[in-house]
């Protein structure tokens, strides 16, 4: 077994952002292990764009049953691809699909697994990869050393630097047979419902304004929506706010929810529990607005205002509107 196998996604002819993050990590492992980077590709995307990111072999499986995500079928496909590629390490994004698949894939491959990986290295003496991940809600960092081969790892989204293009690359494509039939699917997708408040995707937004329990109720979020609109950003929330039903669960930022890496993150009425902060470590500037000066959020923020959000947000939105002309 050798090589780093990345589960790639091509969107509109280019590798998705999470694919580039996986490839960035894969190349770091590949350099340390001196083994090639390969990719698994489901569907019809152009493999050529992967060669230009240093991928040497693309294992492709194309089948109509893979158009929509369904775990049983996708697992069958990935199992087959892994058997063809025989990688030492298999990398998946820790998005909703990767989180759904990784553990079961590891089980089927009799592999080890490390989830939520935030950093990697290779121990030179043993040529063995190691994976760093948060533990205890982000209060600690664990270094995980696999004892078996292969190892499946999910990478925390928006954490690794994206791979850079190497220009024209050369690789080869290996078709993998798809032993799929509809009877293998034991669950069925009935409907997919989108919930977005501002039109900007939370994980792609350059500005995120998040609210927590301190907003006191769903109405407080309208002030956040207005500020986000003016700053062309998105609205997020702490788990306390999603659990209360003030906003949909898909807006939760943090360990269980989304990882965001905006230029500006504004935390309003959020105490800064480590599980929340785990989702914003990539934010360049963090602003906290909170009535309690002792709140932990002020330990991670760059700029803080001790005050009631109701008195701060309206003038803040007004001032930004003036500047941005929105």
């Amino acid at each position: 077994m050798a090589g780093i196998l990345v589960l790639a996604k091509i969107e509109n002819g280019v590798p998705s952002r999470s694919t580039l993050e996986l490839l960035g990590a894969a190349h770091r492992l590949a350099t340390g292990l001196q083994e090639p980077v390969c990719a698994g590709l489901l569907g019809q995307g152009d493999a050529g764009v992967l060669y230009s990111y240093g991928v040497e072999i693309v294992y492709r499986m194309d089948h109509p049953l893979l158009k929509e995500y369904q775990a049983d079928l996708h697992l069958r496909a990935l199992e087959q691809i892994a058997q063809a590629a025989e990688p030492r390490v298999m990398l998946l994004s820790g998005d909703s699909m990767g989180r759904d698949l990784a553990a079961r894939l590891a089980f089927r491959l009799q592999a080890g697994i490390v989830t939520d990986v935030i950093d990697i290295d290779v121990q030179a003496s043993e040529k063995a990869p190691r994976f760093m991940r948060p533990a205890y809600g982000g209060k600690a960092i664990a270094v995980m050393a696999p004892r078996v081969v292969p190892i499946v790892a999910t990478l925390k989204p928006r954490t690794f630097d994206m791979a850079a293009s190497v220009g024209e690359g050369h690789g080869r494509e290996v078709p993998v047979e798809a032993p799929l039939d509809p009877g293998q699917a034991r669950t069925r997708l009935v409907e997919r419902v989108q919930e977005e408040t501002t039109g900007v995707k939370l994980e792609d937004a350059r500005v995120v304004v998040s609210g927590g329990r301190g907003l006191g109720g769903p109405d407080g979020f309208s002030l956040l929506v207005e500020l986000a609109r003016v700053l062309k950003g998105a609205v997020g929330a702490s788990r306390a706010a999603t659990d209360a039903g003030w906003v949909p669960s898909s807006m939760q930022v943090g360990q269980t929810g989304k990882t965001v890496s905006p230029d500006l993150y504004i935390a309003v009425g959020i105490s800064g529990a480590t599980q929340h902060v785990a989702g914003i470590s990539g934010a360049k500037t963090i602003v906290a607005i909170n009535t309690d000066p002792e709140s932990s959020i002020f330990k991670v923020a760059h700029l803080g205002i001790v005050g009631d959000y109701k008195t701060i947000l309206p003038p803040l939105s007004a001032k930004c509107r003036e500047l941005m002309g929105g």
Partner: protein
Amino acid sequence: MRIVVCLKQIIDPELPATQFRIDAESKRQQSDNHPLVISPYDENALELALKLKEQTGGHVTLLSVGQPSAVSALRKGLAMGADEAALITDPAIEGSDAFGVATALARGIEKLGHADLVLCGCESGDWADRIVGPILAETLHIPCVTFIARLEKHNGGFLAHRVVEDGYELWEVVPPVLLTILSDETNTPRYPKVKDIMAASRKSIPTWSGADLDLDASRIGKAAVRAEVQELTVPTQESRCQLLEGEPEEQVAMLVARLRERKVI
């Protein structure tokens, strides 16, 4: 319908970071007499099970792998309204990874007979691996859907709301199935009443050892771990926060000026 809810007992994960210490020997959190709780999402899973039982009938069984102390987590679950509970405890299981724990849970479920619905938390409150549930499903040869916030009756099975990046998906599932449960406003754990706490304290909770479950010793315990915790450290963080003082208008003016300097707006 038999619903099995898998509960893990952990040190309260919401304790502030200042109280967090590492035991260098075991590379785990030091217990320091901190309060032990049911891992939060497992309580949401139990609440979902109890609501389902109230609507459609059924029998809720709690299962935990852990130290003898985990009995108190099971008692709390009984007080919330579960019908029965069992604890799988054995020094040989200690130090198991998710594969070992899932193996033990699977054997426990087989000992119970069967399960129509197996519910786990979407992630544990201490290590948040998100592994035990899916692997338990594989071990039991049943399908699995992760990150479910709600469940409704549908065509002889259920519609499961799966939270995803931009909203949610509705999955049609037919028992037997394993679901991993996320919190939302519909499954906020109930507080047990005093009389239910009293009643639960009198219930007997069987404990099963590895031998009781015929557990294969090579698949449990430290020796079977597939990825080892080599180091565990507390990241250092120095405060860098500049507090903006004054009346709201002044604070806002300063904030906007700083954000402009930083070129983020």
